[in-house]
């Protein structure tokens, strides 16, 4: 079977190729990536499954409209580098999106094969092409237009900021990224764990941007170290893009939440991923010693699953997910849910905490919970959980991780009052341009949408870059 001489029937007969992975028993003891990646043979075989639709629905399912049919054809033909290039026309972070995109709700959901068979493994193929290009040392720097003399500041180095910087530098603008932390990458480095997204991949992407000429200033907190107005008036930036993410952890407001052993997911993941406390004492930052302990994570999103799987890897005896709705309502990716189940994570669904219980030194010893049942759909369209009377019980736990979402960090709002924000403190923008209420200031990513996805943040960064270019050059982007 080769790409030229294969019938549709033969294509449909090929089963979806499973990506090799570390076995659950092994991977719960390490922080290495769960998936090992396709070999070129597996990738080609999987690519042959694509029936090359004349009007590919998958492309419409991708928020940045990657030319999926075209890159998959190239993989089938063995032209892996060509495939990588094709993807990069639309997505600047393919090795990352191929790994963390909720494909089953986007491109793969729309794939025509999903109806009767299994969809083409678009994410896996995207990841393969990007990894192949990087690992064989074939990443070519895109060309950069001659200097326009314009300067743009990007605040925040998450996917929104990085993709905005990438486009702007290629358009010939001088770009400086200001990042509050000491590392670049946003949630990609401090939130998503190594076992799902190796940090060296994020580093490689950032290295590429540096080579293109993007300047990075770490340890720069907008609103504290420097304000948006100072960037524009004193440092001469013609435009500013704000991509600061959604970084203010919510707590539940139940008694005992300030006890020792109660963490926000942000704190727990930051300590482990950014500060590498899983290598304590070689690294100075400690984290709760999970070994042999019972750890409960409250929430049902990607962040909750990342936290609970991390606790398991740190040696937790029992690692629970406690979620007030049922599995069907969990916002986490299905694939991650399955991985977690195989790793021995215990799911307590339709359960809600009401109070943390501790000893006299305020160390956490347990959590009082109540069982829930699902009622009528609420505003979010999901069935609303309601408590079942007299169903309280106490679960002994040593550590709790709260992962119920994030609000917006107030620093920019406090120091730049002329940027309009919503009731939830997210920045209000024109969705066609990502322009804020303040002249020449744009915003995108989680700070606009609230916690969303990498690909949406990236798309927003690109939309803003095009609009900034248009504004600064006084022309339509070419």
């Amino acid at each position, binding site marked *: 079977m080769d790409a030229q001489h294969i019938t549709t029937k033969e294509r449909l007969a090929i089963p979806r190729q499973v990506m090799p992975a570390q076995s659950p028993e092994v991977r719960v003891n390490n922080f290495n990536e769960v998936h090992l990646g396709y070999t070129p043979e597996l990738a080609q075989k999987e690519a042959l499954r694509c029936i090359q639709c004349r009007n590919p629905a998958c492309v419409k399912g991708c928020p940045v409209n990657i030319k999926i049919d075209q890159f998959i054809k190239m993989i089938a033909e063995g032209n892996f580098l060509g495939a990588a290039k094709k993807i990069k026309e639309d997505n600047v972070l393919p090795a990352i999106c191929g790994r963390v995109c909720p494909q089953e709700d986007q491109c793969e959901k729309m794939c025509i094969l999903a109806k009767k068979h299994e969809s083409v493994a678009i994410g896996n193929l995207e990841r393969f092409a990007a990894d192949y290009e990087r690992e064989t040392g074939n990443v070519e720097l895109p060309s950069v237009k001659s200097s326009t003399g314009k300067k743009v500041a990007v605040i925040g180095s998450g996917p929104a900021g990085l993709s905005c910087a990438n486009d702007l530098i290629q358009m010939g603008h001088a770009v400086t990224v200001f990042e509050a*932390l000491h590392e670049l990458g946003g949630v990609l480095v401090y939130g998503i764990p190594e076992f799902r997204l190796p940090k060296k991949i994020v580093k490689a992407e950032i290295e590429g941007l540096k080579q293109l000429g993007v300047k990075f200033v770490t340890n720069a907190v907008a609103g*504290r170290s420097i304000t948006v107005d100072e960037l524009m008036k004193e440092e001469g930036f013609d435009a500013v893009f704000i991509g600061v993410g959604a970084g203010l952890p919510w707590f539940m407001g139940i008694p005992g939440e300030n006890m*020792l052993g109660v963490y926000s997911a942000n*704190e727990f993941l*930051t300590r482990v991923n950014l500060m590498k406390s899983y290598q304590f*004492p070689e690294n100075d930052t400690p984290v709760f010693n999970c070994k042999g302990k019972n750890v409960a994570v409250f929430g049902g999103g990607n962040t909750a699953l990342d936290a609970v799987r991390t606790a398991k890897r740190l040696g937790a005896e029992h690692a629970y997910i406690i979620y007030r709705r049922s599995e069907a309502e969990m916002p986490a990716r299905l694939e991650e849910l399955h991985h977690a189940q195989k790793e021995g994570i215990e799911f307590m669904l339709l359960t809600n905490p009401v109070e943390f219980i501790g000893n006299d030194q305020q160390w956490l010893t347990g959590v009082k919970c109540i069982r829930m049942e699902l009622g009528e759909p609420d505003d979010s369209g999901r069935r609303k959980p309601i408590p079942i009377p007299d169903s309280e019980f106490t679960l002994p736990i040593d550590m709790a991780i709260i992962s119920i979402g994030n609000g917006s*960090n107030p*620093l920019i709002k406090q120091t730049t009052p002329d940027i309009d924000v919503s009731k939830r403190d997210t920045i209000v923008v024109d969705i066609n341009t990502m322009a804020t209420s303040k002249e020449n200031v744009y915003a995108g990513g989680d700070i606009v949408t609230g916690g969303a996805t990498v690909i949406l943040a990236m798309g927003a960064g690109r939309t803003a870059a095009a609009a900034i270019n248009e504004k600064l050059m006084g022309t339509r982007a070419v």
Partner: protein
Amino acid sequence: MYRIVSAQFLAENIKKIEIEAPRIAKKRNAGQFVMIRVDESGERVPLTIADSNPEKGTITIIVQGMGKTTRELNSKNTGDTITDVVGPLGAPSHIEKFGTVVSIGGGVGTAIAYPTAVALKKAGNYVITINGARSKDLVILEKEMTTVSDEAYITTDDGSYGFHGFVTQKLQELIDSGRTIDYVLAIGPIPMMKAIAEVTRPYHIKTVVSLNPIMVDGTGMCGGCRVTVDKQIKFACVDGPEFDAHLVDFKNLSDRNKIYLPEEKQSAEAYVHRCNLIKSV
């Protein structure tokens, strides 16, 4: 990399370090702090900006060697570098003309109180400072405190210098003498701040303390620094570090600060062991 332009001990185990950080020097206000990571494997720790020199582009921190990180920092000298310095963080001190203010510093807390005392003086207040230490050789910033104060007192626990007793006793004495006190700022160990809050509570004197919970990012992202104030959760790194002393749950703060005691001990011991090895070579 941030270069140290000068470093000297003020007392045993307390070092004054001036660091090149032009952006921070230009922006900082009294009461704000920086997060410092000494090297690639280091922890991020908060330290108050004691002083700054915007022309020279430097900030000054005053560090008491407590555990691994602060001791390592205190082993640094002129010309050495620090990997990360970020700031200025935290809400600036609330400065206005209150009338008569008493600024109280206990131990290294004096270094944290100092910049705010300077700002309170500049705002036209009558500034009384009480500078407490365990004994004479641990008194820091005596000259600086005297210069900003209209009245300066030193107290030592052992009576080896100044007033014999605790800062609370000196404050009580001032109150008992019938003077009007409009505002009290107290910074030092948690038991001291709690005791001061109890001294001023019956007199309804507005009292502010600067809290020292364990921090990670210092920008409001992790919630690790949360403290209980007026029964509500506050993030000390963005809502503080200064809070109304009469509303703070000090027990919760001191309990929470003990969460990593075994790990801190382990780190400090390993550090001392390594230092001794290096010395013996």
